């Protein structure tokens, strides 16, 4: 079995027929995919498809026929889709293209036999497509444990397509699937004519499933377990308390596990830098490679662990069935702000990074709600802001640990508050319109499949390095150039030093040009250069301020930079920055969307530059006004 990277151009990139796995969410589709392909898979990017679709190549044993298996996002219906960007829309678009391009393909619908009638509604939609269909019934074991038996024959006869029943946890299921696939591909498996589906899903399901025996004790226990858990987890008082505790605990875990891993990765990058510094020397090239490129790579790696760990946690919560419970608990509280219960999933993810959070909005079915969430996600406190918060709090509130802690928590809360208030405003202006009310399946609790969790982590990590990493690297390189190329017209220094060269760079000139705008906030050209760097990626702020202040390794040891910021002189014997500058800078960082990766993700998901411009303008305008108000307020409070 081999795995492929998908080329651009042709949708599928090779001539092997493709097997498209479709099914409702929670139907056992990923177990079937794992069983068929042997767990691990490549994540393909298909042109025009924003969602990463898993695929693997395999060879059918009987016919030696190579096929490509693709795992499409879970859908309830293909025909009732509203937004081509959601999971359902993606599956629909993908299928439409396969049909339009006349790609040789087989549809495989994975259907939970214990919810037969509901799944048959999708079967009806698939039968209307001009592609061969194989129906795979899973959970037959669950059905049997419930004292019911399933007969495949009447189903097969009524549907007019082959139907196989498997237990995806049984290794022998792979053989059954492969044989059925080979028959469908050979074209001799269709037992009857493909009629326009006249049957009624409910009565067909009732005809196929029969009560035969006593319900097993285990099945009864399983059924009771979900009910008991729901009684506690969805309790009007206890439920929300548990939810909050779980989320706080989750973030504590993310940071406490990610911290040491990040440090270890950082040590690795630093020793690589030291290794390269010798042959490259301290010249321009050496500086570019070690400061510009490796520094950027170190920054990317520092954030990778928490993305992966948060993904694992969210995936576990989702697969166990808890995320749907969270949506149930929060829907009432979020509704006044024009959001639905599910919006909490991307909003939670955004506290690590807005880029995966924007991708996570694909679970929102309501296009207006989805757009609203995308537009406010940049306001939530992603982890890339934390180094800057730490630096500024250390510089101006260093002697007051309690105030420091209060301000730190306040910055998070301001982010959340800003997100819900802005979303309320947007729902009455830019994204106004009817809201689709929540209708959400709450699956029975079950233990997650560790392989599926591992796969999700791999996908998230890869996507982060691809989408965020490259931007950080590129911005770091551009910033390095801006700070090392002298501005035309700057006076020539006969004895150039690093610091004086920096002062005459193009970057410094831009920073000075921005001073009239930023002076009311207390920012001079040096801070402006930092803001310039963080326009691309806010991760670069601390490092850039360090470079400007002539302090190396500010990312690793911000204490000396904090001291430098606090004690810097303005040339008239006064302090260059004070606590009000610090407050303004913190507040500016809360609101401004200083992240090109986020803007690129918004472009990708909304398919429009309009919303990219909108987010940039509104967040920077809000950042300036809020920073101005906050610094005045800080002055009044005597900070």
């Amino acid at each position, binding site marked *: 079995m081999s795995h492929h990277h998908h080329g651009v151009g042709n949708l599928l990139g090779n001539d092997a027929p493709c097997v498209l796995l479709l099914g409702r969410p929670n139907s056992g589709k990923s177990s079937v995919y794992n069983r068929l392909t042997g767990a691990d898979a490549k994540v393909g990017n298909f042109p025009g498809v924003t969602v990463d679709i898993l695929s693997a190549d395999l060879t059918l044993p009987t016919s030696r026929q190579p096929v490509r298996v693709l795992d499409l996002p879970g859908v309830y219906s293909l025909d009732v889709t509203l937004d081509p960007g959601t999971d359902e829309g993606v599956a629909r678009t993908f299928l439409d293209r396969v049909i339009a391009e006349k790609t040789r393909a087989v549809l495989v619908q994975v259907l939970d036999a214990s919810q037969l009638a*509901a799944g048959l509604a999708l079967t009806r939609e698939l039968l209307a497509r001009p592609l061969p269909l194989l129906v795979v019934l899973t959970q037959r074991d669950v059905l049997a444990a419930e004292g019911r038996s399933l007969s495949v024959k009447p189903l097969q006869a009524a549907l007019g397509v082959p139907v196989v029943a498997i237990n995806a946890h049984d290794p022998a299921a792979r053989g059954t699937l492969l044989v059925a696939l080979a028959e469908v591909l050979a074209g001799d498996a269709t037992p009857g004519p493909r009629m326009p589906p006249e049957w009624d899903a*409910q009565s067909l399901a009732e005809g196929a499933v029969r009560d035969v025996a006593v319900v097993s004790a285990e099945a009864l226990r399983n059924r009771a377990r979900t009910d008991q858990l729901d009684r506690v987890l969805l309790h*009007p008082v206890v439920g929300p308390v548990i939810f909050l505790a779980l989320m706080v605990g989750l973030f504590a875990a993310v940071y406490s596990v990610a911290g040491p891993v990040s440090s270890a990765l950082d040590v690795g990058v630093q020793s690589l830098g030291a290794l390269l510094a010798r042959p490259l020397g301290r010249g321009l090239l050496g500086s570019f490679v070690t400061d510009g490129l490796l520094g950027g790579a170190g920054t990317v790696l520092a954030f990778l662990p928490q993305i992966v760990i948060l993904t694992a946690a969210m995936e576990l919560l989702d697969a166990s069935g808890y995320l749907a419970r969270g949506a149930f608990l929060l829907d009432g509280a979020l*509704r006044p702000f024009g959001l639905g219960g599910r919006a909490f999933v991307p909003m939670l993810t955004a506290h690590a990074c807005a880029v995966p959070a924007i991708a996570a909005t694909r679970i929102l079915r309501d296009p207006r709600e989805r757009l609203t969430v995308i537009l406010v996600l940049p306001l939530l406190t992603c982890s890339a802001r934390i180094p800057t918060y730490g630096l500024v709090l250390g510089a101006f509130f260093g002697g007051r640990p309690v105030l420091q802690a209060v301000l730190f928590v306040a910055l998070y809360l301001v982010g959340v508050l800003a997100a819900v208030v802005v979303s309320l405003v947007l729902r009455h202006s830019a994204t106004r319109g009817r809201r689709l009310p*929540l209708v959400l399946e709450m699956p029975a609790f079950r233990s997650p499949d560790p392989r599926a969790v591992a796969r999700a982590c791999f996908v998230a990590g890869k996507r982060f390095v691809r989408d965020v990493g490259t931007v950080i690297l590129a911005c770091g390189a551009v910033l390095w150039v801006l700070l090392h190329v002298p501005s035309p017209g700057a006076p020539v220094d006969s004895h150039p030093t690093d610091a004086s060269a920096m002062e005459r760079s193009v970057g410094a000139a831009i920073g000075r040009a921005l001073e009239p705008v930023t002076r009311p906030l207390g920012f001079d050209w040096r801070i402006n250069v930092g803001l310039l760097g963080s326009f691309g990626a806010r991760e670069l702020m601390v490092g850039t301020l360090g470079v400007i202040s002539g302090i190396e390794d500010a990312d690793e040891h911000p204490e000396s930079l904090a001291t430098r910021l606090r004690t810097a002189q303005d040339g008239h014997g006064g302090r260059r920055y004070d606590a009000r500058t610090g407050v303004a800078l913190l507040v500016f960082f809360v609101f401004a969307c200083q992240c090109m990766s986020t803007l690129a993700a918004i472009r990708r998901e909304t398919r429009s530059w309009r919303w990219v411009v909108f987010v940039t303008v509104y967040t920077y305008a809000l950042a300036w006004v809020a920073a101005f108000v906050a610094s005045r307020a800080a002055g009044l409070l005597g900070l």
Partner: protein
Amino acid sequence: MTLRELTPHHAARILTLRLDDNEARWLRALGVTEGARVTVLRAGPFRGPLQVRVSERTTFAIDRTVAAAIDVAPEGSLA
């Protein structure tokens, strides 16, 4: 009587979905269809959605406004 008015833990059958076409099709695709047996299990906090068991096996969170647009015929009390 509507699903919203149904007493918790009392079973009923869905009679009609008084929703716009797209929304009704979506509910039917989920399995919330005319004739399905439904039981309200509980209501979410802060005037949140209802948790509804549909056709014995699946449970859904259903917004109160949607529940108010689903007509049901009660069957009688469950044990």
